[in-house]
Structures are given as structure tokens and as C-alpha cells.
């Protein structure tokens, strides 16, 4: 089972994903600012949310592997393809207690889920027209 990975620079791209395959999104996040990545919209019939985790950023100075107070890292979101078809995934960076007015960033991905478990198309493509 292949795992597809995407980042902030892949915003708007289409990924091919085999049924049951994992889709991982890694996004810069600094939770101590109050801004967290959240799901904006998702095709829940075809895509399932598995888990979210936070990976602290690189260390500074003479302390590799450690971050200073207020330092950020990467939000790692794991999804799984659960039905064939095209699925949309939209994410937003916001302060949750404020709501939509606080959104300062968004990104979205399109997933083409097929039965082909040997699909090798791991090159991201821009929208349905392809690039």
C-alpha cells in the first residue's frame, strides 16, 4: 500500500491514491500562537481522517532537536482512502475559538482514488486538467 505525501507547496494539486492507501499532509504550524490547522472541508464518503500529530521543529543554537519557547514545527495529518472516486480535502489555519474570521491560510488537495493498488502515479498534478 503506497502512501502519498503532500505539503503546503502542493496546494491545488491532484494526487492519485489507491483504495486503502494513506495520504499524509505535513504543514508548518506554530501552535503556541493559537493558530492550528483544521479540516475545512472533506469528502467524508471517500476519505477518512486517521490522526493528527505535531512534530516540533529543528533545534536552535547548541541544542539540536529542541525548540525554544514559542517555536513551531509541523502538523502531520493522516488520511485514508476508503472509497473509489474523486475526493476533495480542504484545510485551514485558524484560531479555533475565533472561528472563520481568523483563518490566515488555506490549502486544498484533490485525490483520485482507484482500485489499482499498484498505481505508481505519485507525481502531483495540478487540478483535474493535469499539468
Amino acid at each position, binding site marked *: 500500500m503506497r502512501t502519498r505525501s503532500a505539503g503546503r507547496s502542493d496546494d491545488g494539486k491532484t494526487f492519485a491514491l489507491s483504495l486503502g492507501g494513506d495520504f499524509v499532509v505535513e504543514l*508548518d504550524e*506554530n*501552535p*503556541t*500562537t*493559537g*493558530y*492550528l490547522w*483544521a*479540516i475545512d472541508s*472533506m469528502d*467524508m464518503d471517500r476519505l477518512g*481522517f486517521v*490522526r*493528527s*500529530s*505535531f512534530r*516540533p*521543529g529543528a*533545534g*536552535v*543554537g*547548541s*541544542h539540536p*532537536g*529542541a*525548540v*525554544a*519557547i*514559542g*517555536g*513551531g*514545527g509541523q502538523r502531520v*495529518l493522516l488520511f485514508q482512502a476508503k472509497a473509489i472516486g474523486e475526493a476533495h480535502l480542504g484545510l485551514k*489555519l485558524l*484560531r*479555533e*475559538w*475565533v472561528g472563520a474570521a481568523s483563518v*490566515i491560510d488555506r490549502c486544498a488537495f484533490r485525490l483520485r482514488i482507484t482500485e489499482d493498488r499498484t498505481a505508481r502515479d505519485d507525481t502531483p498534478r495540478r487540478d483535474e486538467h493535469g499539468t
Partner: protein
Amino acid sequence: MALDSAFLANLQAELKATGAKWTVGQTSLFQMSEAELKRRLGYVPGPGEPTLAEREATSASRKKETSPPGAPAPGPLPGTTPPAWNWRNVGGRNFISSIKDQGSCGSCVAFGTAAALEGDVRVATNVALSDPGGGALPDLSEAQLFYCGAGANQCSVGWYPSAALNYARDTGVVPDSCFPYSAGNQPCNLCSNWQNLLTRISAWHYINSVADMKAYLSSRGPLITAFTVYRDFFGYSGGVYSHQSGEAVGGHCVACVGYDDSIQAWLCKNSWGSGWGEGGYFWIAYGQCGIDAYMWAVDGLARIYPLYDDIFMRDNLADIGQVPSPPPAYYSPDIIPYGDLPVGDPVAFFKSNYGQDVGKDIYKGQYNYIYTRAKNLAFGPKAGKVYLYFSRASLLLWPSLWSANAIQTEQGGASAAVSAQGLGEVVVPDSAFLWQPPPLSDPHDHYCLVSRVETDTHPNPIPPDGSITDFAQYVMCNPAVGWRNVRLVEHDTPSLQFRVDLVVNEAVKLYIGLAATDLDGCSVQFACGVKGPNPPLVLDKTLVSGPNVIYGIFSDVPAKFSAPITVSYWKGSQPVNPGATLKLVAFYPIEGETHPLAAYATDLEALQPTATAAPDSTTPTKAILVGEFILKIVDSKAGSVSDAPPGKPDLPPKAK
């Protein structure tokens, strides 16, 4: 969406089940990773400082600690602390600046440091945000702290409080207006004259004892602290936060501005805007998330923009010592005419009402007590002298109009001494000035009182006329000069007022009285505001009732006491009999008939029909007349001094 609703429901149920004392608001939190639940984020705030996990372990161990050991803070902290403290409300005064928003940049260290420093400055100078003129102390630039102190590309990296405090010590921090904050990596971009706008601390230290944290908070001001943020913290909307669930997502810096033992929690100021938590603040339980493993404290201040740095007198109530002071210049609440009678404890009284202008009009034709007060803005103990002058009203008020019109203190001194122990202390001289204003020909005219503070670092000499073209501008740019315009008003003007010196070499109990002969229906009063006698030598205005009476008080007069007593006389409605006299007398009380001087003693009871102080078992019944100053009263406003003994009583040696 459904995913978030489920998480919220789960968290709410968990808070309820665990009896948590905080509430969660509407959020769209993600589900958590089990793996991340056990994860701790490492951070190294500086050489020798513990990780977040170590902070948490230390804080957790404090829960059972009653008297934790800790490095002693420089300078004395109170031995006992109140059960609760909140710098947002100290007797209705708020010392904490408004809630800020760091936005999407990881600059919390700059915000936590600036918030604490702003509060510490206000506490040290005793200028609350809500005080008149309180807004003159600017909020400090988080942008400078972060983008200049930490670096231009630190938003995703974070910073350390120790580094921020080093920057505040070594460079200083400008007002927010010099480099306003916006979130996002950017170069240091200070205003052109930033070197003149700095507020600097002198030193800082760690506090690692909960007792010392409370002692510092309740006496010195806010502290800087850091803690581990867990996912459930974002949903906090009120109550006392304690971690229930969710992954650790980083270390966060805030200012701690209070505590409350009744709810076992610290009050902290966050930098996520006022829409989060309790108006931007949160309570967090003692020992939670490393919040009280140790905190960072400012030891002292080395410079405060835009304040003067020495003893100063206000030009008006909104003047907090900033240069220049706000107009108008001629309403100094620190030049305080206070009528014809002294204040019993002027130091305590005029300190207690520093926030008010309690000055009165000047009473025509009589001696007026004029008190002064000042505030120390020097960064340590400071002493000085206050001088007071008067001038006829004048458009330009050249120094030559008032420099020769020095008003003396009640004891005849040229100045009144002030002494402060530290920054922010209000000082009130023991000595009042005493002034009998010369008559003004124009009833609508007024006088100007000008004060001047002289210290070793600011001698503040009276300038030549040519250097002052606009006296108001001169006063507003010189915090050591005060100015108050005063009206002259009729206020029960005595028919006669005179002053008699009282000099005492060694401590003695005296009966000081006014003996009135043939003055039935008249009124008398005496007053001396010089500190020392107990009770003070004051006889309030008293109606004379009888042909030959004495009114007075017993008082313990200290050694080396020397001061004039001001005697006032108001004639009654009836003509004064020829031969009427008013005497200021001093009696030396003795006890018992066996006293060697008893044969010369007067029966006090016979001469004291209505003493101010009620006699008791210890009140002597006999006394020896040791001083007398006689006025022959004639039926006119003027009196004539007799050829009586001199006004300085020559006291006998103390009886054994």
C-alpha cells in the same frame, strides 16, 4: 464539522467526569494522536535551564511543598504574603496593560516579557493604568524585543525569556509606537530617535520558590513564566485550567500577574487577543504544566522613558514625571495650602491622598500652613530639599519676581528636607511652610507659589531672567519645579495673630495654654505644626468663657525642640475692657505637695476650666509657670506687646 463536534463532546465529557474546574468553548480541535499524548517537546531556554518536561516535573512536585527552597531574591521580599493578589485590581487600580495579540508569529517570549516589564514599571513608579496621567507610560515594543532582540527570522523558531531580559538590560526597549508590532518575519526597524526612548532594566533573576513567586508578585509586580501547552488549552474559556488531555504542542511564555490560594491558581496574561480565555487571561492550577517550576523576575530598573530620574513635583494631577509634563503648569497638587491649622500627621495624610488635589485657598491676613510633597523617580534612595517662593501674579513670571520671596518653614528654615528610600516613593517633608500673604490691592488678584527641588544630581538653581521666556514651558520641562496659583479668601480672619518661640533643651512635659483675662466672649487659638510634641501643640479655636481662664493642653515636648507657636485672637461682640490681656503660658507640671518647688506651684485645676484634654489620674494638679508671653488687648484690631518676659521660656531642670 462532525469530527470536531465529536472531539468537543468528548473533551466536555472528560472535564465533567474528572471534575475539572475549567470550561471549554466551541472549538474545532482535532482528534489526538495516542503517540503524541506521551510526547514531550524538548526545549532549552538557555544554559542550565531545564526542559519543558523537567519544568513540569518540578512544578508537579511543588503541589505538596509547603516551604519550598529557592534562591533568595535580591532585596528583601515580604515574609508573609496575602492569600491572593491581582495586579489588575489593587484597590481598584489596574497596573496591567491591555491584552495584546502576537498573531501567527512565535513571539510569545517578547509579549510575556513586555507585559511583565510594563507592569513592573507601573508598580515601581506607582502609576496605575487608570490613574490620571497613567497613559503617559507607554506600552513597550514587542516588535523590537523580538525582531531586533531575537532576530529577523525567528517566528517559527521562538526565543528565550532570559535572552529577552538580557536585551532589555543591555539595550533597552522602546515604546510600541517606535516599532509597532505586526506578525511575520521582518527586519529590525526602529524609529530614528530610538536611543532616546529606551526603558531599561538593571538586572533580572530566576525565582524558583513558590513562596518567593508570591512574595514578588504581591510586592514588586508581574513575573515572566513559561509552560507546556497541551491541545486542550486552546479550548479554555474560563475557570482554573489543568491539563486533562491532548498532545503537548510547545512551550509558551506569558506574564504572571497574580495568584489566589483559595482556588490554588496563578493568574496569567496571554497574548492571543482578548477573545480567548477570560478576556485574554487564564487561571492555571499551581503545579500544572510547569507553570511554576521557576519564573523570571526583574530586579530593578535603570531607565524609564519618558520619566524624570529624580525627585519631582507635579504640575497637575496628570503629571507622572514625564518630560515635558502635560499642561497646565500652574495647578501643582504638590504645593498644598492647608489653612491656618497644622495637620497632625502630614506625612501619612498627604501620602494617602497623593491622587487628589487637597489644597485650599490662601486665607487672607493670617498665617497659612503650606505643605509640599514630591515623588522619587530616582532608581534608589534619594534626598533633597524643597524650596518655596511666592510672587504676585505676572504674565511671564520672571525669576526675579519670586526668587527673593522665599517662604520659610514653620521653624524658620529656608527649605524642607525630603528623603526617599526607593523608586516611586511619595515623600512629604515633616516641615510645613508658613506664610502670611501680604495684602493685595486688587481683590481679584492672586499669588503664584513656585516650588523648587534641589538634589545632589539636580541642583536646579534658579535661572537668570533671560533664560526663561515662557515660564509655563520652563516649568513643564523641569519636573523639579512646581507652580500653583492661589486665591486669597476671607476665612474667619483673626483680629490679631502673633508668633512666640518655644525652645526646650531637654525632654519635658509641659502645659501650654492661653490665659485670657477680661476677654469673656472672645475666641482664642494656638497652633504649632512642628513635629515632636505629643500631642501636637494645637488648641482649636475656643470661645473664652469667664473673666480669668486658661485653655491649653499637656504635651510631651522632646529635647532640642525649637519652634514658634502661632497665637490667634478673635474679639467678641462686646467692647474689650481696659486691661484685658492674653498670655501664652507654659507650665511645668509637678506632682504632689512634697515636690521641692511645690511652694511656687499653681493649682492647675483652678486655672483650667475647660482643658482640651480631659484630666485623668495621671494628670498633674500643680504646675510651675516657666514661660509667659503677654499681650495687652485693646479694643482695636492691633494688640500691644507688654514688657513681659521674653517669649522663650527658660525651663527649670527636670524635677527628680
